C-alpha cells in the first residue's frame, strides 16, 4: 500500500528531518508511529500523501511514486486528518465543510449529498449539519475534521495526534471508531504520543527518533522494551510499569493490556492461596 524506500528529507532551513527511513505499510494494517518531539513523525506522514517529496529515496503509494502525482490525486487514496481542526475549518456550516473535499474530487451533487449524510451520521454530527463549525466545541470540531476526510472514503486514513485535547470518553469513542474503521479493511496510520491509547489499541508500532526508525513491531513487544522506550522519550504504559516493578514475583514483563494483567494477577493470587 505504502512503500517508503530509504527516504531522506531536509527542510529548506537545512534541518535534516528524515535520515534514511525505509518501511512498508500493507493494506488493512493499523500502524502507530511514535517518538519524541522532532523525531520526524509528522514529516514522515506528510510524505504519504505527497505534501512533502523526499529529497532522496522514494515513496510509493499503490506502486506509484509520490513524485509523479499531485497531492490532490493522492489525497483521494490517502486521507490525512491534521492535528488541529482549526487549520482546515472555514465553511458556513458543518455540512458544507464536509462537502468541500467531495466537491474538490469532483463527485456529482447527488453523491455529495449521500456521502455527507453518511459521514455526519458516522461521527454523530447530524444535529449540527446546519451549525457553523466555529461554534462547536474542540472535540466536536475534531470530529468534523475527521468526517470531512472520511466522507470521500479514502483507502488509507492518517491521523496526526488524534487524542490531543480529548477527554477520556471522546478518546474511547475515537479508539472504537478507529478499530472499527480498521476492521472494515481500511489502512489506518496514527501519529501519537499517547502511550496508553496505543496500548489499548494494540497496533503495529513504529518507533522513531532523530529522523530514523529505531524499532518496528508489535505494540506489546515495543512498548515493554524499556531501552527502546527510553531512547524514544516515551514511558511504557502504566500497567507495564507495574509489571516491570513486580518482575521479582515471576510475572511476565510484556503486558500492556489491562484485562490480561488482571487475569495474570488473579491467577497469581489464587496460586498464592488467596
Amino acid at each position, binding site marked *: 500500500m505504502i512503500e517508503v524506500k530509504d527516504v531522506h528529507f531536509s527542510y*529548506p532551513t537545512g534541518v535534516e528531518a528524515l535520515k534514511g527511513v525505509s518501511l512498508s505499510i500493507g493494506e488493512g494494517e493499523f500502524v502507530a508511529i511514535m517518538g519524541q518531539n522532532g523525531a520526524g513523525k509528522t514529516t514522515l506522514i506528510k510524505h504519504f500523501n505527497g*505534501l512533502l517529496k523526499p529529497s532522496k529515496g522514494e515513496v510509493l503509494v499503490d506502486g506509484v511514486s509520490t513524485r509523479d502525482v499531485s497531492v490532490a490525486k493522492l489525497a483521494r487514496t490517502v*486521507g490525512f486528518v*491534521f492535528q488541529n481542526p482549526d*487549520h*482546515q475549518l*472555514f465553511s458556513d456550516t458543518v455540512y458544507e465543510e464536509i462537502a*468541500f473535499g467531495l466537491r*474538490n474530487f469532483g463527485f456529482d451533487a447527488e453523491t455529495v449529498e449521500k456521502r455527507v449524510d453518511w459521514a455526519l451520521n458516522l461521527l454523530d454530527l447530524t444535529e449540527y449539519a446546519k451549525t457553523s463549525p*466555529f461554534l462547536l466545541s474542540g472535540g466536536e470540531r475534531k470530529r468534523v475534521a475527521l468526517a470531512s476526510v472520511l466522507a470521500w472514503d479514502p483507502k488509507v486514513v492518517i491521523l496526526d495526534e488524534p487524542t490531543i485535547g480529548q477527554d477520556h470518553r471522546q478518546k474511547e469513542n475515537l479508539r472504537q471508531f478507529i478499530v472499527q474503521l480498521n476492521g472494515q479493511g481500511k489502512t489506518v496510520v496514527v501519529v501519537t504520543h499517547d502511550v496508553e491509547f496505543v496500548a489499548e489499541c494494540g497496533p503495529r508500532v513504529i518507533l522513531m527518533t532523530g529522523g530514523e526508525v529505531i524499532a518496528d513491531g508489535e505494540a506489546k513487544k515495543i512498548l515493554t522494551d524499556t531501552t527502546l522506550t527510553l531512547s524514544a522519550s516515551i514511558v511504557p504504559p502504566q500497567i507495564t510499569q507495574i509489571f516491570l516493578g513486580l518482575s521479582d514475583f515471576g510475572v511476565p514483563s510484556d503486558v500492556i493490556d489491562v484485562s490480561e494483567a488482571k487475569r495474570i494477577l488473579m491467577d497469581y493470587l489464587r496460586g498464592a492461596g488467596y
Partner: protein
Amino acid sequence: MSVFQGFRFRRVTSPIHSLDPRAKFVFVLALFVVAVLFSDLVPLLVLFFVPLPFVLAAGVRREWLRSLRGAVFLAVLIFVFNFVFGYLYKTSTTAVLLEFSFAMSLRFVVLVESFSVFFLTTSPDHLSLALEQSHVPYDFTFAFTTAVRFVPVLAEEAETIMDAQKARGLELERGNFLKRVRNYIPILIPLIVSAIRRSLELAEAMESRAWGASPKHTNLYVLKLRRGDFVILIFSVVLLVVGVYVRYFVSIPHLSTFLPPLPF
C-alpha cells in the same frame, strides 16, 4: 513564503548586528529616499551595491540572497508592466523604455535589499528599544514589535493550513484567474480566525501578567550611540546629500545613448 525568510532575524554577533538600530534605520531611510529620487538606471545600479558591504560584514549573505530571490517575481512584474504600458502608449523609444523599466524594477530590488539588511541584522527587541527610546508611546511600540514577531508564526501557520486544504483535494493552481483567487478562501478564513483567536489569547495572557499596571517602566538596556553608529549616520547624510545633488545638478547619462539603436 520565501520573502519572509529574508526578513527573519537570526541571533549572531557581527559589527553590523551591534550597531544602534536607530543609526541603521536612518541609513535604510536615506537609501530609501535616494532610491525613490532616481528613476535612471545608472544611479540605481550604484545604489544596488551600497548595502553589499553591510551584508558581507554581517554574515547574512544566504538569508539576504533568499529575500532577493523572493523579490524577483515582483521585480519582473514591475518590469513587464512598465514596459508593456510604456510601449502601448509610445512614451519613448524602445531602448529608453527598456532602460527605464529595468531601472524601475531595480529600484524595487534596492528597497527590498536595504530593508532586508535592516531586519536581518536587528533583533525585534532592539527594534522596540529603539522605538521606545525615540519616545514612541509604549502601547504602539508593543503593538509594532508583536506584529513583527508574529509574521514568521503566521507564515508557518499559513503553510500548515495550505497543507491541510491540499490534503482535502484543494488545488490552488487550478482554474482561471477568478477561480484561483477564490481558491484562497479556504486558506484565508482559517488564517484570519486563528490570528484573531491568537490575539485575544495574547491579550488575556498580558492582562493576567498585569500589563499596564505601572505607567512608567525602565529598561535593562539603554541604547547609546557609539563611534560606529556615528560613522553610519555620517555616511547616510553624505549619501543623502550626494543623492540630492546628483539628482538636481548633474545630468545623468542614459546607457541606451551609448548603445547602437535597437532594430525595433
